[in-house]
């Protein structure tokens, strides 16, 4: 009788340990395969929030990883590209004045590409451009 009870208890413990093991396996595999920009799950949410708040400069700075070749989750790609657009506009003025003509040209090409790839965001692009123009101190 005692042996039976011990056996049943051990089976219950094994089931619990099995569940913990499966959870650990899932967690470990997710942790091992995450991408740079997914590493901080707050980042896409923050990006969206700053775009909503029209803080385009912050969105630009949060999107820096995309310019280093980071892989972006498909559902977040638009936000990153909007941030990239703001970032490139900010840098464009510097490249323009520093005489990096090739880089300036690349910058303009990429800006045109982003606008073309995201035709639904025309109004937002205009606002970002306006903010970049206004950021320049006369």
């Amino acid at each position: 009788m005692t042996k039976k009870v011990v056996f049943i208890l051990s089976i219950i413990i094994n089931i619990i340990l099995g569940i913990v093991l499966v959870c650990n396996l899932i967690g470990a595999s997710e942790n091992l395969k995450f991408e740079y920009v997914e590493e901080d799950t707050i980042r896409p949410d923050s990006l969206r929030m700053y775009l909503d708040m029209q803080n385009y400069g912050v969105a630009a700075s949060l999107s820096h990883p995309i310019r280093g070749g980071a892989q972006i989750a498909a559902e977040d790609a638009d936000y990153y590209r909007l941030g990239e657009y703001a970032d490139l506009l900010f840098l464009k003025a510097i490249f323009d004045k520093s005489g990096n003509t090739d880089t300036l040209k690349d910058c303009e090409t990429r800006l045109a590409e982003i606008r073309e790839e995201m035709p639904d965001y025309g109004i937002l692009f205009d606002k970002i451009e306006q903010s970049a123009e206004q950021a320049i101190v006369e």
Partner: protein
Amino acid sequence: MKCISCGAEIGLTDHVCPHCGRVLTETAAHQAAQIQYQNDSELTKRKAGKTLAGNIPLVISAFVMLLLVIGIAITGYVKKNAYHFREDAQRKESVNKYDEYSAAIREYLDAGDYTGFAAFKEYHNIAEWEAPYDDLRLLWSITGKYSALVTNVEAAVMFGPEARRYRPEDDVDGCHWAIHNFYYELEHPESDIDSDPYRDYIYDMKEKADLLLEIYLGLDATGRDAYFAASDLEQKVYLEEVLIHD
């Protein structure tokens, strides 16, 4: 024991003498005892087998439990250290792909895109403190500050027409800190800039930082001199005037 007929040595449980062939009656007690022992032994074996068979599920369960505990310990360790494993793997990959990555870095640098270089280096976990990337050490220490300068200034100056800003005074502090750090790093580099293989890029980065201050913070060469000659408080007051306006 000896055979009483021929005197040869015989075993305690022999039925007949192996030498003279006489039937041995004197070993009968030993034979009976042997049979009883054999029967007892058989019974004990059967009992032990039965007990063991009854315990097999419990033993298996305990073994499975041990395996599960080991599995949980291993996966827990991997889960906790996954970031470091991945970082190490990326670092090794960056060493293996040195030629490819070096060419990409050179492209960023030639384009004057130092924030792009910073993002590339961070994304690929390139270790500038060890070979083969250790020649990037000084460039990276300054690029990190330059990248922070760009990040802080762009975050402080680019807003939409109906923007909601959390704490503009934090933008002022951020820019003040980033400007100080970048120019301090240039004045007090961890090694000599002039003898660094990437010195031209470092000087170009400084030019770009100067332009950034001029374009977005209104600090031309004269303004910069005045800004750096001013106290911390005066510098912040200036930045407040530029950054926090209606």
